[in-house]
């Protein structure tokens, strides 16, 4: 089709072809197609299916009865055959709490670590960084089993705790909340250290000097000269830790035992041993809402800084 130059608007030359930015943009959209198919097929459609499933009911043999009701959600809120119990709500809140505490511990540990690594001479700097990453090359399940070993009664950690009277004379350090935190923090620490390190490495130290020059105390120098500059890395680290920590089931399963169930374990149970898909779907959606809720709080507190 022949178009007059005026109808084309701004013109650009692209590999010798006279065209418009709009046309180039539309042509470029085709490159998005694989990603769109991927997201539609593996995220949006299954997601919607999950929503639909959550309103169904478990049949006698683990099949799905499509009789649209809110039964699963009332179960999620704790209403069962024997009246109301706080168990599921406790599991949800505990998951939120464990994810929160894990994130806080990771940040507290990662902050000085990132500064330590970033201020090393270039040659040793990447060696230190490698030490942080190497455990990460081992499968999470294997690492978690390793923690089971390390925390078992005959290993020094448990021995020390036994001597201190923290656990019975022949007891192990797992299954326990403590063991879950050990597992979670070691699993997620690299996710906070890495983005934080990249922020610290690019830190503009002249802002620190400016703060000192302008009569700041050490505390003020930190919060005005350093902290704002590390926020982007910290934010990435927090999100990379908090979200997967909310849904983690391997670590609580192996190190927490039956008494320390997290929502991830609850979901896993529904889809495996209980074969209650509709209820599993409802719990999954509950987890998703809870995660978004947690991030929303963080975002509000971050004021003005673009977080998600």
């Amino acid at each position: 089709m022949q178009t007059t130059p005026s109808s084309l608007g701004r013109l650009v030359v692209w590999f010798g072809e006279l065209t418009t930015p709009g046309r180039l943009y539309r042509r470029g959209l085709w490159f998005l197609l694989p990603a769109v198919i991927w997201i539609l097929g593996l995220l949006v459609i299954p997601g919607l299916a999950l929503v639909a499933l959550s309103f169904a009911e478990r049949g006698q043999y683990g099949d799905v009865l499509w009789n649209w009701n809110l039964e699963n959600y009332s179960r999620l809120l704790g209403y069962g055959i024997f009246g109301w119990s706080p168990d599921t709500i406790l599991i949800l809140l505990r998951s939120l709490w464990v994810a929160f505490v894990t994130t806080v511990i990771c940040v507290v540990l990662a902050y000085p670590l990132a500064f330590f690594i970033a201020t090393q001479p270039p040659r040793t700097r990447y060696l230190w960084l490698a030490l942080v990453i190497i455990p990460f090359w081992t499968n999470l399940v294997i690492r978690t089993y390793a923690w089971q070993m390390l925390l078992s009664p005959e290993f020094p950690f448990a021995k020390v705790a036994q001597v201190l009277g923290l656990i019975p004379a022949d007891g192990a350090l797992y299954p326990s909340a403590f063991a879950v935190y050990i597992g979670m923090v070691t699993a997620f620490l690299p996710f906070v250290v890495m983005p934080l390190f990249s922020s610290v490495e690019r830190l503009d130290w002249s802002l620190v000097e400016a703060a000192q020059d302008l009569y700041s105390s050490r505390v003020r120098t930190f919060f005005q000269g350093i902290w704002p500059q590390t926020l982007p890395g910290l934010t990435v680290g927090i999100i990379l830790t908090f979200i997967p920590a909310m849904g983690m089931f391997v670590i609580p399963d192996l190190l927490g035992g039956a008494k320390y169930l997290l929502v991830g374990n609850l979901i896993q149970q529904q889809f495996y041993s209980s074969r209650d898909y509709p209820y599993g779907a409802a719990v999954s959606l509950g987890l998703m809402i809870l995660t978004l809720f947690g991030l929303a709080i963080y975002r509000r507190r971050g004021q003005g800084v673009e977080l998600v």
Partner: protein
Amino acid sequence: MTVVADAKQVGGTLSVERVVKRFGEATALGGVSLEIKAGEFFTLLGPSGCGKTTLLRIIAGLELPDQGRIVLLGKDLTGLPANQRPVNTVFQSYALFPHLSVYENIAFGLRSRRMAPAEVERRVKYGLEILQLEKFAARLPHQLSGGQKQRVALARALVNEPQVLLLDEPMSALDAKLRAEVQIQLRRLQQQLGLTFILVTHDQDEAMAVSDRIALMRVGHLEQSGTPDEVYEHPRTRFAAEFLGAANLLRGKRVPGGLEVSFGRLILPQTPAWEEGSVAIRPERVQLRDTEPRQNGLRVRVREAVYRGAYQEAWLEPCDLRIRTGPHPALRVGQELWAELPPQALVVLEE
């Protein structure tokens, strides 16, 4: 905080006493002493690596000297951390806090000192006003141009009413035209406020334009200091002559009544202390003549002539003598004429 700028007192006398600073093997400062008077615009001038920035950072308290003292108004500041010195810095990169507005950046030092809110507001308003930043008070640093950022950095330092204001190459990020403007403004501001300014720069034009006194530095020591015209007209060394403006250097042997050089004998304004050495003459002090001058004359041929608008520049043979002159009809390549090196224009350099 022990020492904080007294609000009414402006411009302190600063002494730098035999300051030595080493970085590993390298000596950045090899015993530098300076006396900077109250209300003076003092410039540390030198090529990169001469130690001028290190000295400024030592005065600011951002670096500790290995030896020597920094004394402000009779008070020894040497061991005092930066946040307790009545001194403020305008950083080369400006170092504005990116998360704070222009207003909050300017208020930063005042808030650090927990000044009363009314006083903070008064001073920030004053700072915004003298640097014409009122319109930008609510902006964030990334929404400002280079020149505006520089003014914010200046206002942020000035509202603290420091006894000495340190400026670390504050104009290096500005384009040439803006730089010339800012130089004049800076000079005017300094005179208006009567503060002591210490400027670090490698730009000799800038140093000459703004300074009351210049200290020329070279590899960790003070080469020469004085008013711009003293340093320009009477450079003591070859380095001083060549770094500050252009200079022709002539080497020769001392003879009774003058200097024996390759093309003859020159009459000097004073007898040099050395047997063999150099004298310098500025290109604009060389006179062109049609006839042989009475003394210090030299028959020359124009090797190269460059028209520079405001003046003309030429290189003459022999000696590759560089000259600057107003419009001159004879200044064509190949032209032969006489050059006069007036005795009072010749500067005997130290060996």
